[in-house]
């Protein structure tokens, strides 16, 4: 177990393993994304209330829910960085912050575009929207903190702490629609309601889109982490070998 743990912590090992898996993951994502998008756009029936704005649901919900995975991931990596000083954990944490900021921004933008026709407003300061905006600013804060501190070790520690603190916001975002009254509707219950709403014609394409967007998140994270590994390990022989071999 500990051997496995320290092996996992080796950037070289991660780089080589991800080289092997990345093409398969990309193929998987491409298939899921194509099926999901076509299904959502072409086959989902018009909603009895919202008309065709229900198309937005299939982008907004996966992106928003996966954006919530970012802080727990960074916090977990942060704990590993602080306690075990594993280099790879910090590389993952550093790569995850901008990706999380993208996910959060896209969730906010698509939500605003959805809210305009359905609610009648782009934005409202309710608990869900405000806590989501806070997550965006926290991620920008983590990125800024990283670039503001010169010593990489100190930057890693500071960012790890901020990530652990920022992760407190995640349950607040998730349960905001239940704890307080908000304009944002509660999470859709996909376990087949008795009133006939949210049937499989609604949730199967959503599930496919969630899987597709999740693999997209993992792929972006792997790609960014691999770059980070190359940059930080540029003085080690195995990276020099890669550089020498590659034609650009």
């Amino acid at each position: 177990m500990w051997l496995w743990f320290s092996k996992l912590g080796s950037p070289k090992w991660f780089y080589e393993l991800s080289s092997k898996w990345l093409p398969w993951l990309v193929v998987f994502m491409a298939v899921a994304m194509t099926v999901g998008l076509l299904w959502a756009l072409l086959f989902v029936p018009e909603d009895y209330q919202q008309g065709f704005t229900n198309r937005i649901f299939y982008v907004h919900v996966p992106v928003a829910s996966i954006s919530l995975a970012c802080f727990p991931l960074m916090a977990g990596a942060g704990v590993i960085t602080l306690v075990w000083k594993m280099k790879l954990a910090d590389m993952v944490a550093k790569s995850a912050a901008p990706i999380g900021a993208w996910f959060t921004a896209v969730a906010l933008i698509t939500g605003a575009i959805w809210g305009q026709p359905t609610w009648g407003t782009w934005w409202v300061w309710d608990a869900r929207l405000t806590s989501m905006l806070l997550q965006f600013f926290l991620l920008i804060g983590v990125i800024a903190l990283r670039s503001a501190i010169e010593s990489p070790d100190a930057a890693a520690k500071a960012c790890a702490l901020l990530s652990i603190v920022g992760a407190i916001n995640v349950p607040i975002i998730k349960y905001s629609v239940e704890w307080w009254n908000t304009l944002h509707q509660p999470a859709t219950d996909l376990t087949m309601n008795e009133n006939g709403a949210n049937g499989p014609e609604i949730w199967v394409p959503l599930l496919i889109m969630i899987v597709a967007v999740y693999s997209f998140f993992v792929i972006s994270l792997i790609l960014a982490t691999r770059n980070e590994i190359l940059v930080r390990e540029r003085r080690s022989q195995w990276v020099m070998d890669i550089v020498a071999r590659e034609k650009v």
Partner: protein
Amino acid sequence: MKPHRRKKLTIIAFIATGLSVAVGLSLYALSNSIDLFFTPTQVAAGEVSSGQRIRIGGMVKEGSVARSEESLHVEFIATDYNNDLLVRYDGILPDLFREGQGVVAEGMVADGVFQASRVLAKHDENYMSVEVKAAMDAAERDRADAVPAGESNGS
């Protein structure tokens, strides 16, 4: 685990727990101002002074929407099934404004009536196709027809 690592982990756990408790308590204390709107029951209980700019939220009571024919004036009753609140509004309603659906209105209470300056639709988390909805409505009508009017009141 080495002792210095266990110590670090404990410190982190303490900080995280302490912060969570602090954040939780302050959110609990602030919960009234974090709420986006007042319910008709809160308004009826006199939790808002008249003339204060607030938001109210509830369901649009079935059959309560009255539109003026020559202007954009509209009146409807917002309800939380305990108390009702009459809302007056001059303006364009959002696409999803429907009877039986949620609504949030911005404005102020005057003489027990809510004068809204803006009306937002709150939609629920249920998605259904037009066909499914029609089929369900038809089934509901059949059920209502099958049961004599007097008995169905109780169900």
